[in-house]
């Protein structure tokens, strides 16, 4: 069975054959896979290197990979054939979401502005602190979805960037 896996913004092709044979990007690899917690955690040695992967959430799929938080999307062979395309994480459109509930003190940009990555976009007050929310990528501001003075919930889309 063949799969296409997107990890953050990189694509990896996986094939799982019989008797635990794996190939990664069409190359057969010597991977020893042990399931250490059923359906949730694996210890994998690959070419002598020891890795540990734990499921953080299933939907959306998030993995802890050697201490790193990685977003993953898996598309299997059938879906690939059905033309659903590669597992994309909606490249080209980057949302700035409220990382926590709070009061939006200020929005520093307006629709149409060009921003560089890490540019301050808005100020969110939470936990008695004012936090600068920065652009996750460079691009053009496609939408400002919340106004200064608004109380926002965690996860609320604040600003949408059409990324470069």
């Amino acid at each position: 069975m063949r799969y296409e896996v997107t990890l953050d913004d990189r694509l990896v092709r996986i094939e799982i054959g019989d008797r635990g044979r794996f190939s990664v990007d069409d190359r057969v690899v010597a991977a020893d896979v042990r399931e250490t917690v059923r359906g949730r955690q694996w210890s994998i040695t690959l070419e002598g290197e020891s890795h540990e992967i734990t499921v953080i959430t299933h939907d959306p799929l998030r993995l802890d990979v050697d201490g790193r938080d990685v977003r993953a999307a898996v598309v299997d062979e059938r879906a690939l054939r059905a033309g659903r395309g590669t597992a994309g994480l909606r490249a080209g459109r980057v949302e700035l979401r409220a990382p926590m509930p709070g009061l939006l003190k200020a929005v520093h940009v307006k629709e149409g502005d060009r921003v560089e990555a890490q540019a301050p976009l808005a100020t969110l007050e939470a936990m008695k602190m004012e936090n600068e929310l920065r652009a996750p990528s460079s691009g053009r501001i496609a939408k400002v979805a919340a106004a200064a003075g608004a109380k926002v919930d965690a996860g609320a889309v604040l600003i949408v960037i059409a990324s470069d």
Partner: protein
Amino acid sequence: MLVANRGEIALRIIRACHDLGVRAIAVYSDVDRDALHVRAADAAYPIGAAAPRESYLNGARIIEVARRSGASAIHPGYGFLSENADFAQAVADAGLVFVGPPAAVQRLLGEKTAARRLAREADVPIAEGTEPLTDVAAAKAAAKRIGYPVLLKPAGGGGGKGMRKVAKEEEFDTAWRAATGEATTAFGQPALYLERAIENARHVEMQILADQSGNVVWLGERDCSVQRRHQKLIEETPGPSVDDELRERLGVAAVRIAKAAHYENAGTVEFLVDARGNVYFLEVNTRLQVEHPLTEMVTGLDLVALQLRIAAGERLPFAQGDVVRSGAAIECRITAEDPYAGFLPGSGVIALVREPAGPGIRVDSALYPGMTVPNEYDPLLAKVIAHGRDRAEAVARMRRALAEMRVSGIPTSLPFHRFALSDESFSAGRYDTTFVAQWEGRAAPELSAGAASVAALAAVLAMRARSERRALPVTDPAWARAAREDALR
């Protein structure tokens, strides 16, 4: 003993109680019912809604619980009610013992400009500064006289909250407005005072213990120069630039201030030390500090147990000459903040916790798998403390411990701490309060090819495991989930 706090410090105090054979009573807000401090205590009582004002800051409710539960003393921990003189007074008025300095001492030292006057009278140097000010024009004139850069500090309290550095006059009005607002929120009064900013200074604090008979000892310094927005991220002892002569000078100054204030119980006297070794008194923290384990590691003393003994009226069981410091210790504060996003605090569910162990490592933590990190409180999750025969050994052990540690599900400060401990200037002990600026703007490194391969493999296995489970007509009972989560520890 009623422990009027939450998180790792509540657990720390409960442990000291149990070491002394004292029954420990926990209190908890609605979102902390499952917290470890509730489970570790002998008894536990709800005190209200998640918002601190409704629960951990609700002094009247806490005193009522103490009375009803048969407690004879209250330990406030740090934060919350620990430096609230009115609370200390109310505890005493209720016929209970407050573990900490009495209300009058707290009042005196809590008013930061009064503390500065006290230091001056005790012949301890202070940075040039002003009395409390509420008028922006007068403040601006004072800033001009002192010379930029200046610090705006709330007169009503410390801990870095509401503090602002102003580099030049044009920035003064904006900074004044912001600092006044934060001071009002944090301490209930807008008054600020100005202090000359000491550039490239090290933030050094001296631990003291004072009993009710007037005996005061100093136990050694802690260096807290790795800070962000005046909040500490890494602390260590001994201070990398503190020699025996300076240590003695800081210790003697701290004892002099404590005696002048008729201090009781554990406390910390904070100083700035400039590049030429000049010492400036900053403030006294009239509570147990977050970083107290550093002093415990090098002295072998249990500060919390000593706090309880002092509060019970016992005399200090040792004199200044009996205090022996051995080796070096470092503490990393692991917080629920994303170092790749300007240390933005976050909340969410912890999926995996693996705490480091092994020689010289201590972890004070309230983490458990499945824990929902609430967003109502301080983002501190755990403290990792490393002790070694010397600084190099402590640094090596800390580096190893941080590599071992896993906290996943929410962003944590771990990547920053790993960076700091592998940084050459930190390893060499050459760093100051501007160290964190070297980190800002960094992005998470790319996954290695090997890690990406195994991650992709695991992603497929996770998806298949899930669809197989979905196909099975069994439920997922809570006990099985708990057992699985336990296995993840």
